[in-house]
């Protein structure tokens, strides 16, 4: 079965500093990869996704992520963090057969981001 590991439970950065959130997955093939963000009391919002092709993907709010097959990783980055980026971030993998009859997403445990002024 597929699994997702987010090694960092909580990260604190200063506003304006760069950010990297780590995500590793375990799956026999290349899954569909996603990053979601959740603000307190809210549902989850998609930041970006990777299916195939260019391994560096751009998302909303200035975020990007890089897929590295050799490391089974899909790390999220942002060059300059804003106070409004404080939230919880979830990496997810989507797997299913070619017909999609059992397609489902597995989420990591999340990384809570705190931004200091």
């Amino acid at each position: 079965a597929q699994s997702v590991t987010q090694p960092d439970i909580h990260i604190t950065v200063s506003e304006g500093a760069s950010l990297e959130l780590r995500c590793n997955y375990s799956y026999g093939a290349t899954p569909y990869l996603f990053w979601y963000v959740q603000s307190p009391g809210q549902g989850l919002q998609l930041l970006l996704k990777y299916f195939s092709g260019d391994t560096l993907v751009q998302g909303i709010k200035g975020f990007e992520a890089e897929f590295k097959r050799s490391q089974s990783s899909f790390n999220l980055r942002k060059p300059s963090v804003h106070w409004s980026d404080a939230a919880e971030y979830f990496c997810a993998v989507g797997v299913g057969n070619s017909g999609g009859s059992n397609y489902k997403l597995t989420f990591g445990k999340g990384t809570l981001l705190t931004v200091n002024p």
Partner: protein
Amino acid sequence: NAGVTQTPKFRILKIGQSMTLQCTQDMNHNYMYWYRQDPGMGLKLIYYSVGAGITDKGEVPNGYNVSRSTTEDFPLRLELAAPSQTSVYFCASVRDMYSPLHFGNGTRLTVT
């Protein structure tokens, strides 16, 4: 479009009571999911459905049941509520494997 609508938003149950969490979507999505979210544990898949009349167990199905009689609705049933079912429940739907999930706003359930 309303997207994915969950009701109720909050509920307190006594141990042994039963209830149904409602989820409906108006986007004609075939795939629908129920997740529970506990602090520090991320989202765990309870049940999912790939179309009307088809449901399957996820990672943590014990204590729950689902049905999918229509494309729009995917209710989650708790038959004998237990304190371990205290959680925030999210319903989600998606058009296909290449699209992002649409999440409801969640139901916060407390079992005492």
